[in-house]
């Protein structure tokens, strides 16, 4: 391989987008439509990387009618600890309503009409197909695509603004530098290499790089999202577990649902006791229903087909797999309406950014996350184009410095560290349900102690004898950094809110209705950030109100 610090390919552009999923694609398209030149770089393949391409996700393409939008805005508002902002929801829904239908137009597809539902018709298109279309659009718009080109560090100008990034092409082994007027980080969340579906490209490399240039994170305590999956598989598709009945090894039925939804806590508790089995046999008897479910989520059945199990008829053993902030909500903190971070020239979108603004502390799986990806991607892309233009023609003549630390350049004189054992060390603290789902001060402190030692370890010389080991070393550092922010924020939030469960603080504390900004590399810190919106009361459904009146009168 070439030496990491050698100059390789050099490009100059107005906007650099880092990532290969929907938020990245939308940011690149939006910046390009604003007249900017755009380069998009991704660790994998733009269109196949990340959680969405391997999966599918609902859109919330809804006209500005409160009867249609209110249910979306309020569905998880309380569950998310009232940390979402309705003002952000309105912006995101407006953008999604305007932009998402373009995917169908670009592909020349007729929009299906669903007669029995008021929900959006723009759904059912799989992630793989949606991303294939978006990649075509990027090519048509002249966006330069660098696949298999992980960004490993950000570049800073002398004023402290982000001026691009550096990385390496893992198939040609050549380093690359992209100098840019503005940079959008849309590189996905972090799932700590759990093999949750499509999530192993999401290792938090850019969370670390952003923190190295002074960006902050937020909502990292809301990173304990687990999804059900057939045991040994990668298929973390949770929607169809609403048809599940659960049982133990002896076949005794287990009550693991609450209000008709699966309860992650209940499943996790049972899994700590022994194996859990599952069958999708609640209301799925009709062959038409089964065919509909198969067509709705082909990937859900891929795993079953291959091992010859019919999940409607046969019990299968299940597990819970950590999806971290991919379906949890933490990420790079958004500091303004433009999806800008606290660092000039650096924007964040999609799962890489905190999704608290529309999801609060609860998962946004099944629609809200995609609305965030489309909304934040478009906002960040436009803002990045405008920022770059504001810097004038000499934007890419700026002197820049490289900023990558842990896992990229030795920060002490310790010998080389083994990235696999570091990753294993992080996973040993993050994966177990009794550490991550059921949190306590004692447990978090113990884990943080171990993670601090791993952080110390990754300050040593990274192995860089191959591109693979170079990338793995940096990933290992990023996985430690993100794990520390997750548990440090979890330690500071002394209450139970959203998916953050503290056994020692089991109730929601109204005085902690704030965001927790978190950051720091060697020394961690948190800071409460006010939610700039009072709790919005749920509108009273006129039919429900009438029923209540009748009940009182009776």
């Amino acid at each position, binding site marked *: 391989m070439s030496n990491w610090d050698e100059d390789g390919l050099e490009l100059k552009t107005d906007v650099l987008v880092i990532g*290969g999923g929907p938020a990245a694609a939308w940011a690149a398209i939006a910046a390009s439509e604003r007249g900017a030149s755009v380069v998009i770089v991704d*660790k*994998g*393949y733009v*269109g*196949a*990387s*990340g959680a969405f*391409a*391997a999966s599918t996700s*609902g859109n919330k393409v809804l006209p500005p009618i409160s009867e249609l939008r209110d249910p979306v805005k309020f569905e998880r508002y309380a569950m998310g600890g009232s940390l979402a902002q309705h003002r952000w929801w309105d912006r995101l829904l407006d953008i999604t309503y305007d932009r998402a239908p373009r995917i169908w137009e670009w592909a020349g*597809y*007729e929009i*299906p*009409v*669903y*007669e*029995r*539902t008021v*929900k959006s018709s723009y759904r*059912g*298109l*799989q992630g*793989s*197909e949606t991303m294939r279309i978006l990649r075509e659009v990027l090519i048509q718009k002249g966006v330069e695509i660098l*696949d298999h080109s992980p960004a490993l560090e950000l570049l800073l100008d002398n004023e402290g603004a982000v001026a691009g990034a550096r990385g390496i092409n*893992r*198939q040609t082994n050549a380093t690359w530098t992209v100098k840019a007027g503005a940079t959008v980080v849309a590189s996905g969340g972090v799932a700590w290499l759990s*093999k949750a*579906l*499509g999530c*192993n*490209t999401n290792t938090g490399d850019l969370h670390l790089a952003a923190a190295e240039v002074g960006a902050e994170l937020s909502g990292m305590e809301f990173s304990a999202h687990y999804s059900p999956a*057939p045991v*040994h*598989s*990668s*298929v973390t598709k949770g*929607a*169809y577990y609403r048809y599940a009945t659960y049982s133990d090894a002896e076949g005794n039925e287990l009550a693991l649902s609450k209000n008709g939804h699966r309860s992650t806590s209940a499943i996790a508790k049972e899994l700590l006791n022994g194996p859990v089995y599952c069958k999708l046999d609640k209301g799925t008897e*009709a062959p*038409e*229903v089964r*065919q*509909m*479910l*198969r*067509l*709705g989520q*082909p*990937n859900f*059945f*891929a*795993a079953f*087909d*291959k*091992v*010859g199990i019919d999940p409607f008829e046969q019990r299968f053993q299940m597990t819970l797999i950590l999806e971290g902030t991919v379906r949890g909500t933490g990420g790079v903190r958004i500091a303004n309406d433009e999806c800008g971070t606290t660092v000039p020239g650096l924007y964040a979108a999609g799962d890489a950014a905190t999704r608290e603004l529309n999801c609060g502390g609860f998962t946004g799986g*099944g629609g809200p996350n995609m609305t965030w990806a489309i909304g934040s991607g478009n906002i960040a892309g436009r803002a990045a184009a405008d920022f770059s233009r504001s810097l004038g023609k000499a934007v890419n003549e700026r002197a820049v410095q490289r900023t990558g630390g842990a896992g990229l350049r030795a920060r002490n004189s310790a010998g080389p560290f083994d990235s696999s054992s570091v990753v294993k060390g992080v996973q040993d603290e993050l994966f177990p349900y009794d550490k991550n789902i059921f949190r306590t001060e004692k447990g978090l402190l113990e884990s943080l102690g171990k993670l601090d030692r791993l952080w110390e370890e990754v300050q040593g010389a990274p192995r860089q004898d191959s591109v*693979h080991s170079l990338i793995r070393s940096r990933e290992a550092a990023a996985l430690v950094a993100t794990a520390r922010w997750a548990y440090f924020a979890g330690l500071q939030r002394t209450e139970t809110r959203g998916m953050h469960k503290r056994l020692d603080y089991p109730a929601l504390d109204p005085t902690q209705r704030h965001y927790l900004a978190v950051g720091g590399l060697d020394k961690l810190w948190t800071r409460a950030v006010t939610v700039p919106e009072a709790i919005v009361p749920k509108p009273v459904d006129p039919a429900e109100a009438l029923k209540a009146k009748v009940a009182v009168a009776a």
Partner: protein
Amino acid sequence: MIELVSEKRCIGCDKCVKVCPTNVFDAVPDAAPKIARKSDCQTCFLCEAYCPVDALFVAAEAHKDVPVNEEELVQKGLLGVYRRHLGWDKGSSPMDRLNTYRDLVNKVGSPI
């Protein structure tokens, strides 16, 4: 994880090398790609989806090796099964499947 690159079927287009998000394959001149970093396979099935000749098989098991037999996979119709389910196989379209889905939703109600 990825278990099979069928040398019989592979046409050497190297599409799998290009699209694999975790860079599991290495291209080999004038031959089928090599599974070079199997443990990096995240079991996302996207290489299968993109393979134009159904030469690949990704087993459902994400963490352990599973022995496979090509003839048996062909007999069971498992080569290219995910591509067919996406409507990405020849002569099909994602919209054909989506329209059937729509008709079923209109008939029996929305699953989600």
